């Protein structure tokens, strides 16, 4: 069957996209077809498949970024994963890491999910527990989802709309679940003073979420929000049976609604996922559920994980952040190892805040001088170079975020080492022709930020801007130091290293927390310290209310440009990471939605 498909179409991406979307929207039970479509598209490069598993991309550097490596439908086997630390929480209502959301789909089903497909196709939302995408009414204030019939928890009871409603409501209790995202409580029209189902027992919450019947759930928002479908893909919408909820302890007693359930859970040590016999392939078009078992070892030394993945003893570093600096040179200098690696791009920007509250940086020309004077390549090197660091950035939005437009307001010269003439020109316009002195904050326990601060000091010295470096502990970095506006002014923190990654690949998800001046808190705690532009706030509001995706995406880049005109952010690098591709697994590809290997489709050779 593979061979019939391998000869169809030459454009792999187009093939995967069109085929699976159309069918997803028409038929309900087509898991087999989608599986074929995926492996067929992956199979296009199968001229030289030496491994005999049915073609797929060649085992070469970056192969899994755009194609499926080792496509296969073989069931069975065990996927072995390692983690250098442990989950913030396995509870889908609380966890707030990309890898955890990627992984949670093995034991839970959210209303929607990012399509498990290589490359850009993964940015598309597809229904999971829901039958289709959300239907907005009332200008994006009401969103309705139909839930699939026949989906069961691991104990055999059917998943109903009330289980989803309960899951979302419990996640709004931030005293019980302090780590989780706080989008639902911000957007839903909850009764005043509502504190979640544990503390506000018996309170009628139909003003926020109503369930007209067992298979329909309706979300009622305070204001119109065009991007609500992105919230419906959060792990917080994975159903939780109220009768089995144990609050903060539920993280160790999770009731699965996906193809796998927990076994041998030893907190901070290890756990396993084994097959959930109540899961029915007929209700699930997205999952293949090929392996019989997942074994996850926690608190393993990070360098040890790299070495074991290289040797094949472990399959994947589950945290998906890329190899450690020590393994970097090993992987990049050995052609065989390099062929076994993928250089994934992240929807993350490493940047430096340029605080207009600290004179003379209150003058835009002085801020522009910094934009011109900085040696962009040294920023990149500080973050680990072109492979584990990232690409030189000139905008606030990274290219992965839909709506990104390339522009460069402050060209840093032909070698990207800075344009000193322009910098001096700006300094003269600012009234500081001989430069000035200011301070730069960085997180002292992050070697890359320390290297960045040192790079700034060296580069800016060339035009007479003298920096004093001040390292602060990362735990309190935003609450006490660089994110605390009075502290910034009192200690003259002109520059502060910073970084931001989107919760999901969307302009709102990326920009809202770092360019909206209304998130700045006088008591500290916000990542945004430097962008205080009323017109940007207005532009954000306009974009937020737009329910048409295509129109909305066009509204982000002008915001980006406006921020760069004011030079209140120095964009450093669009982050990348060097991932080690598992040797013994099948259906391996990097998902643009998670910027790491997609954990839903993996199989064992």
């Amino acid at each position, binding site marked *: 069957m593979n061979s019939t498909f391998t000869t169809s179409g030459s454009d792999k991406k187009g093939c995967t996209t069109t085929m699976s979307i159309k069918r997803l929207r028409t038929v309900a039970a087509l898991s087999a077809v989608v599986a074929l479509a995926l492996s067929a598209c992956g199979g296009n490069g199968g001229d030289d498949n030496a491994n005999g598993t049915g073609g797929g991309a060649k085992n070469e550097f970056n192969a899994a970024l755009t194609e499926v490596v080792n496509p296969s439908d073989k069931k069975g086997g065990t996927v072995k994963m390692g983690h250098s630390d442990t989950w913030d929480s396995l509870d889908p209502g609380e966890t707030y890491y990309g890898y955890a959301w990627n992984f949670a789909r093995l034991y839970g089903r959210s209303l929607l999910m990012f399509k498990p497909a290589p490359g850009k196709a993964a940015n598309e939302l597809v229904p999971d527990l829901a039958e289709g995408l959300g239907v907005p009414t009332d200008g994006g204030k009401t969103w309705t989802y139909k839930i699939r019939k026949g989906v069961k928890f691991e104990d055999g009871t059917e998943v109903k709309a009330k289980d989803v409603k309960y899951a979302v409501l419990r996640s709004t209790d931030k005293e019980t679940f302090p780590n989780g995202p706080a989008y639902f409580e911000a957007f839903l029209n909850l009764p005043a003073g509502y504190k979640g189902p544990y503390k506000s027992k018996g309170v009628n919450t139909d003003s926020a979420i109503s369930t007209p019947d067992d298979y329909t759930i309706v979300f009622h928002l305070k204001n119109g929000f065009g991007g609500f479908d992105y919230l419906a893909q959060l792990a917080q919408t994975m159903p939780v049976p109220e009768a089995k909820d144990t609050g903060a302890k539920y993280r160790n007693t999770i009731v699965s609604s996906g193809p796998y359930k927990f076994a041998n859970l030893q907190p901070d040590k290890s756990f396993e996922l084994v097959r959930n016999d109540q899961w029915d392939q007929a209700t699930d078009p997205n999952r293949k559920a090929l392996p019989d078992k997942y074994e996850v070892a926690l608190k393993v030394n990070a360098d040890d994980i790299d070495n074991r993945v290289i040797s094949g003893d472990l399959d994947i570093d589950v945290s998906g952040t890329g190899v450690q600096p020590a393994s970097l040179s*090993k992987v990049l200098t050995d052609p065989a190892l390099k062929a076994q690696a993928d250089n994934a791009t992240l929807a993350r920007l490493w940047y430096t805040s340029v605080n207009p509250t600290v004179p003379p940086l209150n003058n835009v020309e002085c801020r522009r001088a910094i934009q011109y004077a900085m040696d962009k390549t040294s920023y990149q090197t500080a973050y680990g170079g072109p492979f584990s660091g990232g690409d030189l950035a000139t905008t606030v939005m990274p290219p992965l975020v839909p709506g990104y437009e390339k522009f460069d307001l402050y060209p840093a010269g032909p070698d990207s080492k800075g344009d000193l003439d322009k910098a001096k020109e700006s300094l003269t316009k600012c009234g500081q022709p001989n430069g000035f002195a200011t301070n730069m904050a960085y997180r002292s326990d992050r070697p890359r930020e320390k290297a960045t601060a040192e790079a700034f000091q060296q580069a800016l010295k060339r035009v007479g801007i003298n920096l004093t470096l001040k390292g602060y502990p990362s735990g309190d970095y935003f609450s006490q130091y660089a994110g605390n506006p009075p502290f910034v002014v009192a200690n003259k923190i002109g520059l502060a290293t910073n970084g931001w990654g989107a919760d999901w690949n969307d302009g709102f998800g990326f920009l809202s927390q770092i360019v909206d001046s209304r998130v700045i808190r006088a008591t500290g705690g916000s990542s945004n310290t430097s962008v205080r532009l009323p017109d940007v706030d207005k532009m954000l509001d306009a974009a937020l209310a737009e329910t048409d995706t295509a129109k909305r995406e066009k509204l982000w880049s002008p915001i980006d440009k406006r921020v760069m005109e004011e030079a209140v952010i120095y964009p450093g690098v669009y982050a990348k990471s060097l991932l080690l591709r598992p040797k013994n697994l099948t259906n391996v590809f990097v998902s643009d939605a998670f910027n790491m290997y997609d954990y839903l489709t993996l199989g064992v050779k």
Partner: protein
Amino acid sequence: MGKIEGRSLGQIAWMRLKRDKVAIAGFVVIVLLILMAVFANLIIKLIGHPPNEFNQDLIDTAGGTLAPLGKFGGMSWDHPFGVEPVNGRDIMSRVIYGSRISLLIAFFATLLSVAIGTTMGIVAGFFGGWVDALISRLMDVFLAFPLLVFAIALAGVVPDDAFGLQGDSLRIVLLIFIIGFFNWPYIGRIVRGQTISLREREFVDAARSLGARRPYILFTELLPNLIAPILVYATLLIPTNILFEAALSFLGVGVRAPTATWGGMLSDAVTFYTMPHFMLWPGLAIFITVLAFNLFGDGLRDALDPRSR
């Protein structure tokens, strides 16, 4: 007939010390280290590069490994110890500059410990009674103090501008205070014990019966006899303090970036443990310095107090 000349205690000790080749070697190394630290600026100007200067053209940025280009960590006549990965700073210059911070802090912290310890020890041993009890308990408290935890906390809490100082000078003074102020009980106990045994000796009794006052007895009769143990202990305390300063810098609570310190360089090197040269030079510098002080200290003790052999 030749005149029979009496030899003073110091002359005898010096004769013994001269015969101890190992101790002399240690002494020579110490002198060289001090000269290197004092003339660091001059040395760098003549043969080196500024310690914080980036040389990113010497780093493999294109290949992405960020390792120094060339063999053995980028060693060359221009950069005899090689360069750091990532930013290409000259390791030799940084090691030479690092000696300043290490020696400065170790010397002054030792001086502080010796000053406090000697005073407290003499007072406790000479006066005895409740004074002795009070000071001895105070020493117990200080010895039981979780110094490292306190040092980390204090270095984190003290702002950038305090006590009229700021930046590096503030950090150096802070480190001298932390290391020096909490190490005095060790020397204090030794001095107290020696004082107790000395104060009952005949020459002190004689001075007392001749009507000498307490300050005279303390400073003229007792102190000269305590010089030997104090000197020996101080030489052995310096290497301990060098290691402690390195440990604090390693933990990131020492002098701030980009100022070079040996401990800080080691800390930077940890993430690049596959490039051993980066760790080798600052490690070697600490090793040689500590060894030199220890060898000299041992020799000095043997020379001043042959019975301890």
